[in-house]
């Protein structure tokens, strides 16, 4: 039973990490649209996002479904507790889905520009909200004895969570910039190099700030590391990615930056998971009654059946998603001769 619960803790993390890595392309590139004023440039970026944004979003839906199936108490507690925040998130997800699909339905520059702007704003908002949510979950929330959040929406917007929100915008912006670098050429690619550099700088600074904040005010997030020093490897990987990133930008391999930032995002999920384990929602009102993977999970049979389904389905999903990305982008990534000097 325990190993099943831990496996599902990891699997939910894998799905959410998959979401940030892949949807990071369209969220981040959407957010970065403000850097591209020229309609042709925007067109080039959106042209590459259109075939894949939909399947990228499925990672979030499946992650939500897996949370529901594996840890119903967490799903119920977090989703109802974050009611207004989630309504806002839904609004943004709806807006960007509609925007990216219909921006060219009518042949008018005004129509296209408005929907592109909507996509930009909605994508940025999604990044911010995800970051805020994860920040709050990392340090914990006040819960009542039934596992329901007792605070208000405004309390979710505390300094720490807002900082993690901006961190998420920066990291996903980095991911989006990496995607643009790998899939486009010319001025679009050059601008993306510049954005990548700036977003890396911002990410780095915020990462240091967040780490300091946790050291000073949230020492509990380090407890697991002290108990099992071997998991220090995960934050070490994260920091290495962060430090190596500028060097990756200088290499003439156009898909290297996005690979590094993907690894960075995955290791960030690893750090989050390692810090929170075994809690899914730490209870700040009474830490003993936190929602953990042990007291919130589904029954053994459900976890087992779901694991079998996941083991059958996920490899297939990985396979055909990889195939589709290859089909759409491999040619471009191989052909593009990068003007790496422009980045420096």
């Amino acid at each position: 039973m325990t190993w099943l619960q831990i496996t599902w803790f990891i699997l939910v993390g894998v799905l959410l990490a998959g979401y940030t890595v892949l949807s990071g392309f369209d969220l981040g590139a959407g957010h970065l649209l403000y850097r591209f004023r020229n309609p042709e440039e925007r067109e080039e970026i959106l042209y590459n996002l259109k075939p894949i944004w939909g399947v990228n979003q499925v990672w979030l839906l499946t992650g939500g479904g897996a949370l529901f199936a594996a840890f119903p108490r967490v799903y119920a507690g977090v989703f109802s507790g974050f009611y207004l925040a989630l309504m806002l998130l839904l609004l943004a997800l709806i807006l960007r889905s509609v925007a990216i699909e219909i921006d060219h339905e009518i042949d008018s520059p005004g129509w296209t520009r408005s929907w592109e702007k909507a996509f930009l704003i909605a994508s940025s908002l999604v990044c911010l909200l995800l970051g805020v949510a994860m920040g709050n979950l990392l340090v914990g929330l006040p819960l009542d004895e039934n596992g329901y959040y007792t605070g208000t929406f405004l309390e979710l917007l505390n300094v720490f969570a807002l900082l993690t929100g901006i961190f998420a915008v920066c990291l996903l912006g980095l991911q989006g910039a990496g995607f643009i670098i790998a899939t486009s050429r010319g001025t679009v690619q050059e601008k993306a190099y510049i954005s990548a550099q700036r977003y890396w700088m911002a990410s780095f600074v915020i990462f240091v700030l967040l780490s300091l904040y946790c050291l000073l005010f949230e020492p509990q997030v380090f407890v697991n590391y002290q108990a099992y020093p071997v998991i220090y490897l995960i934050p070490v990987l994260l920091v290495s990615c962060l430090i190596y990133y500028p060097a990756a930008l200088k290499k003439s391999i156009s898909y290297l930056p996005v690979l590094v930032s993907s690894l960075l995002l995955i290791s960030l999920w690893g750090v989050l998971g390692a810090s929170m384990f075994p809690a899914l929602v730490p209870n700040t009102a009474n830490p003993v009654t936190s929602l953990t993977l042990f007291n919130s999970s589904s029954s053994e049979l459900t976890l087992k059946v779901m694991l079998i389904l996941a083991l059958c389905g996920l490899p297939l999903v990985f396979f055909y998603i990889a195939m589709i990305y290859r089909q759409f982008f491999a040619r471009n990534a191989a052909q593009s001769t990068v003007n790496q000097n422009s980045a420096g």
Partner: protein
Amino acid sequence: MQRRYYRTRDKIYLQMSRFWVRPLAVTFVVGVVSGVVMEFQFGTNWAQYSKYVGDIFGAPLAAEGVLAFFLESAFIGVLVWGEKRVSPAIYRLSSLLVALGATLSAFWIIVANSWMQTPAGYQIVGGRAELTSFVEAVFNPSTLPRYLHTIDAAIITGSFFVLGISAWMLLRNRELEMARKSLRIGLIAAVIACLAQFGTGHYHTLQVASTQPEKFAAMEGLFQTERSASFMLFGQVEPENRIVRNQIAIPGLLSWLVTMDVNSEIRGLNSFPVNEWPPVKATFYTFHPMVILGILFFLLSLWGLVLLKKNTLYSSRWFLRLAMIAMPLPFIANELGWIAAEAGRQPWIVYRLLRTADAVSVNVPAAQVAASLVMFSVIALLLLGLWVFLIAREVKQAVAGDSSEKGVASI
């Protein structure tokens, strides 16, 4: 939603498939958007429910994601945007895989819904339902009848959509060759699907009669338990007086339909406690129009078949006009059917296990629920308007664009 299933199959002709893919793309967005809301709202608005049934109900949703929705979304991107960007083999495969994904997706969602109607494969432990048999829960008594009925309804909706638009093109003298071929395919699919729907509808009704007798009684407007119950075509139901006025009914037919025996006994609503009655009007007045629409769809497609045999299908303006008018009706029939199914399950959210009133999120203020409800209603209406507008535009544009290039050749 699964209209795609049908539409993606008629890719015998490249031009046709290109044409029909556009409405599919627009429809898909609306589907994705409403799906996202559904996925979240179990947790946000139905937290007590989610805790109570999560052990069982979450699994089909997650399975839908992993086994179906990924497939469908991945390849719809290829189908819509990939014609010139991916290898021809994968492009050809994509329509098939989208259809497969959509059909599987429908299955898992129907599983989740059916479990709420006729729960199976569980036991109640410590105030929640725990899974005891996955197979029993998935193939609970109403899964198969509901699935067949829904998929067939989707095929009818898709074929009437194709019929209506092809008829419009023929009436306007546009793209005649494509319109004729599409009309023919749509018609044949419609005839088969409408005929099959009597079968699946009957099968589904039998299941409701045996597993949810109070819903069945409300659908049929049957208050008094009686032998040789009559089958009602029309009537005015008055739950307060427990009668149906002005009814046109065929005596004994209901009993016969359920058990093949005219004299068999059917339980009426009076034999159930009133606090377990579903809202009778909402169930009765949605079920009957749905059945009547279903009969009309069959008659219309049958008429078309007769015209096809007489070789006057493409020139019969009356038929074409009717086919155009009928285009939105299957959508309405689908909604009516779902309202009948869901209203008929009340007051339960999980039949005879959990009342809807006990399933809500206790920790969300009513004002927030009301505000979000208004917000999503407005969004839904806007999306509906946008969808109709864009579909109409897509069709006109595709026709106009094509006819300027090769319209002459096709006439």
